[in-house]
């Protein structure tokens, strides 16, 4: 077993983990943060997307031991004191979810696009979401939600979501 420490949603967490444990199961089963979901076994679906040190990562494709010393943001880290994060609110306003299983990963991926300055045209957002599969929505409302949230989140006083 290996001891790792990382800041998850602004809280310092420490735990003993098996070297082979995937980061997604460390979050879900060791820390009980079950908002991040597993949808495949080939790094294809993106339902497990989280932020690690400000970058979007598929947490099924990273070992927990690799997260030692990092800052992680999961879906549970976006809303604060009962207020939805602007991107979460945009998904609600634009019906950007139906079953909700891909939604946590979709929102983290969208947040990554907004924060790393990606272009917000339809084509650019769609390409940016290439690693996140959804079977319910047909993606159109998701793209709209991300575009709209970007306009509010990219004000001059760039309000950062999560623990950054």
């Amino acid at each position, binding site marked *: 077993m290996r001891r790792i420490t990382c800041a998850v949603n602004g809280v310092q967490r420490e735990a003993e983990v*098996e070297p*082979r444990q995937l980061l997604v*199961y460390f979050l*879900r*089963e060791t820390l009980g*943060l*079950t*908002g*991040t*979901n*597993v*949808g*495949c*076994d*080939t*790094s*294809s*679906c993106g*339902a497990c997307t989280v932020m690690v040190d400000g970058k979007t990562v598929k947490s099924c494709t990273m070992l927990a031991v690799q997260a030692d010393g990092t800052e992680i943001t*999961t*879906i*549970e880290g*976006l*809303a604060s004191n009962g207020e*939805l994060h602007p991107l*979460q609110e945009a*998904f*609600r*306003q634009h*019906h950007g*979810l*139906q*079953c*909700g*299983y*891909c*939604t*946590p990963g979709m*929102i983290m991926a969208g947040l990554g696009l907004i924060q790393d300055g990606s272009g917000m045209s*339809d*084509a650019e*957002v*769609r*390409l940016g*979401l*290439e*690693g*996140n*599969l*959804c*079977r*319910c*929505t*047909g*993606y*159109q*409302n*998701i*793209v709209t939600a991300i575009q709209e949230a970007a306009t509010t989140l990219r004000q001059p006083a760039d309000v950062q979501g999560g623990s950054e």
Partner: protein
Amino acid sequence: MTQVAEPEAAKQFVGGGVLRKEDPELLTGQGRFIDDITLPGMLWMSFVRTPVAHANLTRVDVSAALEMPGVVAAFSGQDLASEWAIGMPCAWPIADRVLPEEPTADPRIPDHWPVAQDKVRYSGEIVAVVVADSREHAADAIEAVEVDYEELPVVTSAEQALADGAQVLHESLGTNKVYTWGFKNGDVDRIFDEAPVVVKQRYYHPRLIPNAIEPRGVVVSPVASQGEFTIYSATQIPHILKVLMALVTGIHEAKIRVIAPDVGGGFGSKLNFYAEEAIAVAVAKRLGVPVKWIEERSEGYLATIHGRDVTQDMEVAATEEGKLLAARVKLLCDFGAYSQLVTPGIPILGAWLYHGPYHADAYGFECVGAYTNKTPTDAYRGAGRPEATYAVERIMDALALRVGKSAAEIRELNLIPRFTEAKEIASGLSFDSGDYPASFAKAKELAGYDEVRREQAERNPRVASEGKGKLLGVGISTYIEMCGLAPSQVLAALKYGAGGWDAATIRCHPTGKVTVITGTSPHGQGHVTTWSQIAADALGVTPDDVEVLHGDTAISPTGMDTYGSRSLSVGGTALYKAAEKIRAKAKRIAAHELEVSEDDLEWREGKFQVAGAPDKAKSIPEIAFSAWTAHALPADEEPGLFATAVYDPPNFTFPAGAHIAVVEVDTETGRTEIVKYVAVDDCGTIINPIIVDGQVQGGVAQGIAEALYEEAIYDDDGVLVTGNMSTYRVPSAAELPNFTLDRTVTPSSTNPMGVKGIGEAGTIAAPPAIVNAVADAVRAVGVDFIDLPVSAERVWRAIHSARGGGDGERAAPDTGTGAASMTPQASAFGDADERSEGGAQ
């Protein structure tokens, strides 16, 4: 007791884009999906699955696995044989039959045990179970189970299965044929013999893998001393699963509770009784502790039902001008190794729709099903109706070419004119209502149809002569679907094992709040929000005053669950009727309290108002309070304000509409880019327009995926070659366009709200719209037939073989020998790399 506050003035919620009540918990990661459920003392199950598609099991030895770290128990098929009162159930056992006569043979439904006992018949079938103290230990231990397979010849297509001398999968049946089922309406054969124009083509719908983003899973928690079992399952059918689990395990039905937690999409793949669910109950019973299994994605590619895999010989007879006289179709269906819950019935769901929304005088349908060494097929979004619409809309384009009309003209000539009351059609059913010409006219307008045709007429000949460039194509799909499963007597006539009704209970609380308990089981459709809208308008409260409970058979004991676009037209109508009962009782109490006769009361602005004295009124919350105190109720009126309704629909519902796809096909790469996609759908009365649009967008995306990308391919040994999400192409946002949506509204005559259902419209309409568009484009370079999927590779091969390039597959002439002779290409690999090139704008 304080008096209840006046409810907000009765606003109209039905028809409004109310934001979903389901969203806040799903947006913040607070959803409770099956894998989020962990219980004290819980053990993990994993399954040994045969890599071999057809073999006798000569030895299954779990002893080595029992020695592995953390392993608590392990079972072979023989070990668990005593657990099953009956085998895996098939609720729709279709037999050889020509309607309306009775069947001429017994249904050929073979024994099918949750764990194989002596023989395996498809790659992925379960041969042993391991139970351990962690997910990882269970996964490690299955490697230690020793299994000897005595391999048998493998059958991997329906044609092969029915050929003389084919290896028979089920000795007890003596044949691989499941059934031959069909009927005729009108003098169809004579019309075909005498008709001046007959067009025939063969189509093949590749096998599809549903790919709900949430894998399946089950957790069973026993109370051993009481013999009670709580089954959490990622299922679409908690109520039906409870009945079936009682039958399969012999456990008393009252001792079984099924809970569908948040379910991450189903699309038909979770509308089944699965081996893993039965095994989890048996193992929990044996060990007396909770057990959990979560499907891995590639495991699910073998373990979860597939869709489609149907060959169609479609024919139409017409006049010289292209007026449709009769339609006739023969289906050959590859059902896979066993009949799962409704496998045999899936093609039957499309049986009456092979003349589409068009007028015809006669009709013929025949379907042959076959067992093969592949995963069983069953319901996948549309279930039988996409196949029907595809065949009709493709053959109408072929008919148009034959009689020298445009694709639009041929449809306008044949569409059934507007009707508002039930109307019998060629196949013998009665459509509820429709305005098909109006939907089509609106779709043409939105697509800029005439302008696109002009540009096409100019551009395509130029591209063809230059031999390079982007060809323009227009594809039309004026579809009709049969939804709202179903009138129970009709299901009886079709030998379907369950009823088609649904139930709803309303409880009006003394505080003015309302609880709705529904028999539907939503998993993304937003029933909590839409049922709240219906109840709010019916009872004069707001959607937030309404709590909708579903998916737990201890809370909602009665229901027939969610599939086949039935929830609103059957479950929603049950709610509407329960509300009628509430208002009837409330009216009696209001009249009594206001000291007027019931006839003097009017239901207006969500209250019972005295006619002519609107300030003298009573709201339902007020009456609920009076009914709770029961201080002054009318004589022999029971206290309390609650009601239950169980509604059995008199007919199906028939949503319809027109989709038009405008595409560009690159002659160099074969890639199709969707320039515009227009969908005009008519699902009758709209409850929530935002949710309707969401269902259409999701369905169209799946339909486009079926048309352009998806294809499950088996090799000759029965091994699934496209065995995971990196080789089976579920398209991302990058591969799909924006959609232009609009609607016409023709209320259904089947139910009081006039609703029809919208969940499957997209998967039904989109495939032929796309394939017709691609076929329309490549016709300019000599390709006269192309079939599903129109992937870049298949289009490229068709273009080059038409040019005499030689290495593509021969494009079939009009006599339609095309599809079956085209062996499915391993196309999923061909364009895997081009995924990153950016997609459709």
